[in-house]
């Protein structure tokens, strides 16, 4: 409690609006008629299906496994039949579709065999990380980064601090809050597992001071723990975006994560509360990640609250549980109002990163004001948690000056939206930065591809030149050989003429034949010789060209 905090620059205090969803405890959701499981619910490579359409599966069965290091598996949230594997609407800012497994529940809700680990202390950390990986756990705070990757630091990394991000600084969202209120012991168990894996010196659970009930519940759970631990509940002042990973690290430790480096670089691992709880379920109960708590809130809902939804539940189904008023609904946001994105349809499913669904009506979120010109008032720079100059970045973004934007560290923008929030001219600043970041990424990808194409082109040119050189050499050798044969023939004919100086008239025919006989032999010999020579030459030139080919390649590598 008395821990020294370090604060971070900038930040805003938007209206919290958290009470609406806190009036009721976590609600169960009846099984929907179908579940839609996108293969990509995380950052990294999409999962690879290991079942096919028509198969019946049990609850918790793996449907698609992680593909590559940065990936996460997908499991069946209930027992049923896989109807198809097809493109379906996914909850994504683009509104595009993605490949999904469509599962029809059989209402039996039959689990596969589960095996929990009662005592983790004798288990190797790598094995625990493996279970976490098999369980398909990915960051549930919104980003969806596969958890096992974060828990597999390089051998030389010295992890000092584990931070549990229970800040939940976005307005409206309360899913972590109720999780801690109702299942604090599970969260604490999850922290213990993480501590065992990372062997870190201290574990800090950071909670904003606007969640007194959650803080009390966590402290009580911690007090009831009858084993030595290094966990500390740290209460931090409420300020958006104190839950940003980098901001939280700075706030708690005073350390800044160097640009472009993961927190591992400074010996810190940050995990979200819900993720920590999911780790506890996976290790101690053998349950893969198949459900999560979703905050349903907004003025278009008559019964806002937190609902424990199976992954893949259609959002529409979930909103019905919260008694959605269809006529009121004007904007449906996944995530919080600051960083969440508007969904184009409620057909998309709940995924691992769906922490909140905000069904807003027109009064709550009116259409955005038209933007006025930038007066460079600097309000955006005051609130920027990354100490950027948003007003300058805005000019560069608008003018398409990508180099300048890069120089002014656009890449360090965490897209928290605080700048847009305070802008008196209502300029959609962060929207510009997102677009410009996309342009930058595209430009860099194009650049990489064009470099690659140039290498391929140059290699091809070289290859063609070599082939041509080899062909030329061959042709030359052949020409030489035939020239020599010709010369030999001529010489032979001369010899013949010398041997038979007087023989003219009658011996002509005979001598002719004799000469031709010896000629043929000689010519053949000459050809053999020439061929040998040509081969030797070709071999020599081959090695020469080989040398010349290997040279540019080594240069490339250097």
């Amino acid at each position: 409690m008395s821990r020294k905090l370090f604060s971070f620059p900038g930040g805003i205090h938007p209206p919290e609006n958290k009470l609406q969803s806190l009036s009721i405890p976590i609600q169960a959701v009846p099984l929907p008629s179908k579940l839609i499981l996108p293969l990509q619910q995380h950052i990294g490579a999409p999962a690879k299906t290991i079942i096919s359409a028509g198969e019946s599966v049990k609850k918790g069965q793996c449907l698609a496994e992680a593909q590559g290091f940065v990936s996460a598996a997908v499991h069946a949230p209930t027992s049923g039949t896989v109807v198809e594997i097809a493109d379906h609407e996914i909850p994504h800012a683009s509104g595009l579709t993605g490949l999904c497994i469509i599962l029809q529940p059989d209402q039996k809700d039959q689990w596969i065999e589960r095996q929990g680990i009662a005592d983790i202390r004798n288990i190797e950390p790598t094995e625990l990380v493996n279970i976490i990986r098999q369980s398909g756990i990915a960051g549930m705070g919104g980003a969806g980064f596969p958890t096992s990757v974060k828990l597999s630091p390089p051998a030389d990394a010295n992890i000092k601090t584990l931070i549990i991000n229970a800040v939940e600084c976005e307005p409206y969202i309360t899913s972590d809050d109720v999780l801690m209120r109702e299942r604090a012991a599970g969260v604490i168990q999850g922290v213990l597992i993480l501590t065992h894996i990372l062997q870190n010196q201290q574990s800090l659970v950071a909670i904003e001071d606007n969640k007194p009930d959650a803080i009390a519940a966590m402290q009580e759970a911690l007090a009831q723990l009858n084993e030595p631990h290094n966990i500390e509940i740290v209460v931090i002042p409420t300020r958006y975006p104190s839950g940003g990973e980098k901001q939280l690290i700075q706030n708690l430790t005073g350390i800044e994560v160097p640009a472009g480096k993961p927190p591992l670089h400074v010996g810190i691992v940050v995990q979200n509360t819900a993720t920590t709880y999911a780790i506890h379920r996976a290790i101690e109960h053998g349950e893969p990640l198949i459900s999560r708590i979703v905050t349903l809130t907004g003025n278009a809902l008559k019964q806002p609250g937190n609902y424990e939804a199976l992954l893949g539940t259609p959002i529409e189904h979930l909103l019905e549980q919260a008694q959605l008023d269809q006529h009121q609904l004007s904007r449906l946001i996944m995530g919080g109002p600051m960083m969440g994105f508007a969904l184009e349809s409620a057909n998309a499913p709940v995924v691992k990163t769906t922490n909140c669904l905000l069904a807003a009506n027109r009064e709550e979120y009116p259409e955005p004001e038209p933007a006025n010109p930038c007066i460079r008032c600097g309000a955006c720079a005051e609130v920027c948690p990354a100490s950027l100059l948003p007003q300058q970045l805005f000019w560069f973004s608008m003018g398409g000056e990508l180099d300048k934007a890069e120089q002014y560290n656009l890449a360090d923008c965490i897209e928290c939206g605080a700048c847009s929030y305070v802008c008196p001219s209502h300029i959609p600043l962060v929207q510009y930065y997102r677009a410009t970041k996309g342009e930058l990424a595209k430009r860099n990808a194009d650049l990489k591809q064009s470099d690659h194409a140039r290498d391929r082109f140059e290699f091809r040119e070289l290859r063609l030149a070599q082939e041509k050189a080899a062909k030329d050499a061959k042709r030359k050798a052949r020409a030489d050989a035939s020239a020599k044969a010709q010369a030999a023939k001529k010489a032979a004919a001369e010899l013949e003429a010398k041997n038979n100086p007087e023989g003219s008239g009658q011996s002509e025919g005979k001598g002719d034949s004799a000469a031709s006989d010896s000629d043929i032999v000689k010519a053949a010999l000459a050809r053999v010789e020439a061929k040998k020579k040509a081969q030797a030459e070709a071999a020599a030139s081959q090695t020469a060209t080989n040398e010349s080919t290997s040279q540019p390649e080594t240069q490339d590598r250097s």
Partner: protein
Amino acid sequence: MKLEKVTSPHLHGRSDTGHVMRLVILATLPGLVALTWFFGWGVFINLLWAWIVALGFETLVVKIRKRPLGYYINDYSALVTATLLGLALPPLAPWWLTVVGVGFAIVIAKHLYGGLGSNPFNPAAVGYVVLLISFPAEMSSWVPARGIEAAVTPGFIDSLSSIFPVFGNLLGQPNVDIITQATPLDLFKQKQGLTTAEIWQPGSAFGHFAGVGWEWVNLGFLVGGIFLLQRRIIYWHIPVSMLGTLLLMSLIFWGGSGSESNGSPMFHLFSGATMLCAFFIATDPVTAATSTRGRLMYGAGIGLIIYVIRVWGNYPDAVAFAVLLMNFCAPLIDQYVQPRTYGHSQGQNKGHKQNKSKNSTSDQSDDS
């Protein structure tokens, strides 16, 4: 179900450009009251006239540019320009002086450069400098402030007829005789070898620590400025660094109270348009430097130039010149003064291209 496709953030704070501008105008109120009290109704009439002219020009230009009028008027920026210029004009400035100044500020200094947000120079300062250079006589005819022996503060009718001779004619009061006197800064500049004590006599234009009336006017603007700071409309960096530099310069070059004196720090801080400039003109964000350190440098530059021109230059006051000169420097300051971004070490990102490679090398050294 038709759902809106709006990008985040979905929330917006209550701030709004029009609101900001209205607060700026409101904050000039204490200064305006002081000015009106000491120099008569002319100040108030000037201000109203400046508003009308500004709105007229704004409407005209926006119409010519074929832009939505309501949208442009709603930002109140024209009124702010008019207010600042109106407050800086002599109390009985003839009506056409205001028209020329405000017209130049709005049409040329603002709209010809692309309108609000795109103008490199502070419109009010541009308007003022144009008037000062073109009409030096009219621009230096201040009535003596109330409290000076010779002062006859003109009443409403006198002021009105003096500003608009038409009204004078209508009301049968043509050719009002108005006594004018140089401002304290002017007097101080032309003291011709007198010591400070000699010119600082009771009943003269010099009051407690600066000019009679002027000290109160400056205090008024100081109060308004503190209000703006408290409402976080402006940030402290520019006023503090500007006033600080002015204070420092006047301390260093004070020269005591003899005939060589350059004036006390208090005299410089509370004379002329110092406070109006510090809180209202120099803080115009459009034309100022934009980063925190940049603002400090920008403010310091203004303070320095004001002092240099006041003491060694040809003009008694130099606020507008100082602001314009530093407007020139603002992009340069912005180019070279960039705050340290999270996760970057100091001096890594100063707007130089070569830094890219430096970044990577320093990162490598971090690794080891």
